[in-house]
Structure formats: C-alpha cells, structure tokens
C-alpha cells in the first residue's frame, strides 16, 4: 500500500544522517576488523544483535508490507509508518513557514501599498445620488460566507500553526484545550462554508463570466498601468478573477475538508496527506487573498464598503469604477436621489426617526 518514492529516502535528512553515521561508525571500526575476524580477545566482542532481522522487518525500511491484524482500518497492518515522520517534517519545516511567509508577505505588501498610495479616492467626490448594487439577499450571503470563513480561518490557523505559535505562549495543556475546541469548531462550521459558497456561486456566476474588455482591464492592471481607469461592467476583471479564485479554491478546500472529515470511504494515508496539503495551501492562499479583498473593500477604495453594507453606491463611484454598468443603470432611470434614499436607509447624515412635517405645520 505504501509507495515510498526511492529518492525520498536520500532526501530525507534523518535517513541520510543515519546512513552517514552508520558509514562513519563503519569507518571507525575498520582498523579493528582484522582483529575481530581473528577473534582477538582484546577487541570488543562483535556480537550480532539477534533482533536485528526482526527490527528491520518492523521498520519496513526496504519494502513496506502490511502485516495481518484484527484491527479494521486503513494502514492498521503497518506497525510503524515512517510517512508519519515525513509528514511531520514537511509540515513543520516547509508548510508552516511557507504559510506564515505568504500571509505575512501579503499583509506587508498591502501595508506598504497603502503607505505609498493611500488608496484610490473618488475623483469627483460623492454626488449624493445612488444606484442599487447589491440586494439584501446578496449582502446577507456575502457576510454569511465572510463570517464563517473568518471563523474557519482562525480555527484552521490554530490547528496548522498552533504548535509553533501558541504552545510557546500558552503551554501544552492550555493549547490542547484550544486545539480540541478549534478542531470541533472547524469541523462543524466547515460544511456551512460550502453551503454559502454554493449560494454565492448561484447568485453571482452570471455576472462573472468573461467578457469583452476583461483582458485589456487586466493588462492595464485596473488603471495602475497607464494611469487611466479602464472601462468595466458590473464586475471588473479583477473582481471576476477573485470570484473564480474563491469558488475554485473554496470548492477544493470544501472537497478536501469533506474527505478529511469523513475518512470512512477507503481513504488511505497518501490521499489524506494530499487532501491536507491541498486544504491547507488552498486555505492559506484564500486567507492571503482575503487580506487583499478586505483592503480593497475598505481603505483601498473610497466609498466601496457601502455596496456591501447598505447595498447602494454613489453614482460617481459607479461611473469611475464600473462605467458601463453605471451608464446602463442611468439609461434605465435607476438612479435614486439621496434625499429619497435617506427615507429608506439610515445613511450617513440622516437623523430623524419620523417623517418630515409639511412646512405649513411649523409653528403649530
């Protein structure tokens, strides 16, 4: 069942070290060999450990074989599985540092970008008229996925990096509590993410199909190359790319998550390891992406957050960033005056909880 690649033994440091040590020991022993063979009583008696053969079999170093066992389960016939050690080393020495580097790096880049560029401002300020961009159901769906994702990200990062980051702070006992809680929480909320993801897919897929102008939007990097803001429809090419990243990586994370959470279908160790890698790498990629997404939606682009809170965006914002969509809306007569909208929403600046009195009423 195990299929250790031959090259890995050489690359595996522990194995290499053991081999080197064995060679070194052999080298040291060489001068004494003739004496040993002569049976000289002055040199240490070279007694062959009668258990060597047995332990070689147990370690299954050369040809891993599953033994017979009454315990039902994948790999339960393998007594000592060296893949466990390989996995541990991969996780501690490659996966976790890489994850930290990626997330930290992206965060750092964003901070640097903001310090240098200070975000994209509205060219002509707010005009006080609005367009409906996201209906209530879309906003609820988005924030549902966002909330569940944040919870899964936190618990997932605890599970991934806790050993390195949290044990030094909290100690083993407290961390075991945190880890158990995180595992239970992560496993329960996982499927909730999938359900939300499918909802997002259904609601937004039609607006995220490739269209004319997407390539040139990309080439102009949304306007950072060349200085002029390229034309865009409801969603620009960058947003479409983010959508598909979220969907594809999200589905990968969900699928691997389900594989990991329900190991009752014949998943063996390699499948579980692969799933874990895809799950973790995918999650870290998404987390890094979310850093960017949150930045663009808040400090990175003035007046963007409105679209996901009230659902209404200022017409100037729409014209600047999604001119084709703004034009279509204006042609349809979908623009709502700020004063009219203030009656329906508690937008910034609205105060009164009651309708305005007619002018003639004053002085009653």
């Amino acid at each position, binding site marked *: 069942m195990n299929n250790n690649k031959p090259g890995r033994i050489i690359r595996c440091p522990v194995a290499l070290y053991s081999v080197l040590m064995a060679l070194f020991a052999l080298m040291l022993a060489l001068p004494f060999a003739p004496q040993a063979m002569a049976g000289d009583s002055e040199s240490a008696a070279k007694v062959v450990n009668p258990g060597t053969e047995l332990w070689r079999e147990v370690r299954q170093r050369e040809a891993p074989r599953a033994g017979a066992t009454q315990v039902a389960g994948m790999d339960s016939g393998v007594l000592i599985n060296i893949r466990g050690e390989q996995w541990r080393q991969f996780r501690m020495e490659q996966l976790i540092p890489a994850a930290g580097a990626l997330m930290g790096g992206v965060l750092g880049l964003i901070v640097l970008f903001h310090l240098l560029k200070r975000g994209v401002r509205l060219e002509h300020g707010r005009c006080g008229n609005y367009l409906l961009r996201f209906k209530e159901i879309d906003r609820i769906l988005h924030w549902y996925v966002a*909330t569940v994702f944040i919870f899964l990200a936190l618990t997932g990062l605890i599970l991934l990096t806790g050993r390195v980051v949290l044990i030094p702070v909290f100690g083993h006992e407290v961390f075991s*509590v945190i880890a*158990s809680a995180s595992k239970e929480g992560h496993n*329960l*909320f996982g499927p*909730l993410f999938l359900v939300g993801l499918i909802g997002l897919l259904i609601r937004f897929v039609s607006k995220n199909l490739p269209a004319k102008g997407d390539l040139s939007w990309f080439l102009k990097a949304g306007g950072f190359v060349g200085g002029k803001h390229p034309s865009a429809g409801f969603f620009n090419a960058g947003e479409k790319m983010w959508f598909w990243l979220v969907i594809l990586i999200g589905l990968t994370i969900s699928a691997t998550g389900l594989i990991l959470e329900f190991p009752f279908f014949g998943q063996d160790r390699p499948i579980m390891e692969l799933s874990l890698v895809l799950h973790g790498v995918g999650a870290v990629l998404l987390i890094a992406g979310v850093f960017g997404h949150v930045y663009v939606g808040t400090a990175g682009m003035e007046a963007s957050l409105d679209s996901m809170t009230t659902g209404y965006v200022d017409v100037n914002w729409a014209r600047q960033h999604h001119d084709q969509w703004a034009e279509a809306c204006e042609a349809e007569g979908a623009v709502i005056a700020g004063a009219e909208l203030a009656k329906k929403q508690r937008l910034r600046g609205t105060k009164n909880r009651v309708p305005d009195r007619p002018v003639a009423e004053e002085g009653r």
Partner: protein
Amino acid sequence: MITAFVDGPLWYFALVVFLIGVAWRLFAIFRSGSKADFSVPRRSGAVSAFMTSLRRFVPRHEMSPRIRLQVVAGYMFHLGLFALLVFAAPHVLFLQKHLLGFGWTPMPYWAFILASQIAFAGLLILWLHRLLNPVTRLISDADDYVAAGLTFFVMLTGCLALMEDFTGLRVLHRFTVELLMIYFPFSRLMHAFTFIPSRAYTGAWFGRRGVDA
C-alpha cells in the same frame, strides 16, 4: 474552584432566577387584567384562541415571497435548536442527571451535528438580516443583539466542547448557559413563553368576530 462554582452555586442561582423570573413575567401579563367584552360573539373565543396559537406557526401564503428569508432561517434556527436541546445525547444525560431524573432515546451523533449546523446557519442568517435590513435595523435594540449574541455563544461553546474531554470547555459552555438563564426573564427571549398568551388573546379577539386569524 471555578468548576465547582459553575456546577454548584451559580447553577442553582441561575435556575432560581430563570424559574421565578419566567413565572413573574407571565404573572405580570395576567395581573394587568382584561376588561370584559360585552359584544355578542359569533363564535367561541376559547376555541379560536387555541386554533390561532397553532395557525401562526404557518405564515399566510399572501405574504410569500416577501418574508421567505425570515421564515426559513427562523425555522432553521428554532427547529435546530429545539432538536439539539432536547435530543442531543449530552443534553439528555444532563437533564436526566440534574433536573428530571429520567431520560429518553437521544438522536444519533450525526443528527446532532446536522441539527447544530442548521441552527447555526439559521441564527447567523437572521442576525445578518437584522443588521442589513432597514426595517429591523431601525426597530432593533440592544436586547435583540445581546439575546442573539448570547444564544450564539451558548451554541458555540457547546460546539467547542464536543469532544467532551476537557473540563474547561464543558464549564465554559455551562457558564454561558447559566448567563443565558439569568438574562432570559429580563429580555425579549421571554417570547418563548409569552407567545402563547399573545397568540391566544389575538385568536380569541378575531374568533369572536368570526375571523380565522
């Protein structure tokens, strides 16, 4: 020491506050009194009271699809919560040991998890709706958010303690439950009990007029 406090004095305190508080709130309703109705009814108010108490579980079809989200998410949350409160194995054991002295067959573990997931999703969607819908954003107050938040924390701490292997997590869950029990009678959560007289009064009023409300 904390464990002993949460399992002991705080539990009894919470239980007393909950039972007496709920009883007092219900008593306060009836204490306010009702005037006699001298009009000639078309039919019995009592029967209509009972019927309306049941009928209001099903929304009027004329309201569809306006309130679909509140109804679906509302039932997801309430039914999920009811299922896991009453039929989850750890709760059945708890009720048997600490309150009732008898138990019943709990639901299988996978059903417990499924019910919790449905309840969580429902609560989260409702809470987001409360924040994002202009009507609920206007009329909601601190009580609404605290009640929802506290309920969520109770459910969350329960979920975190699912392995049932760490005293700290179990105690945290029990602690949040006790907080909720203390908060309950002073809050809008009382609707869990007051919905009965509320629906009944309205049912009787409409029933006397011959209207199935």
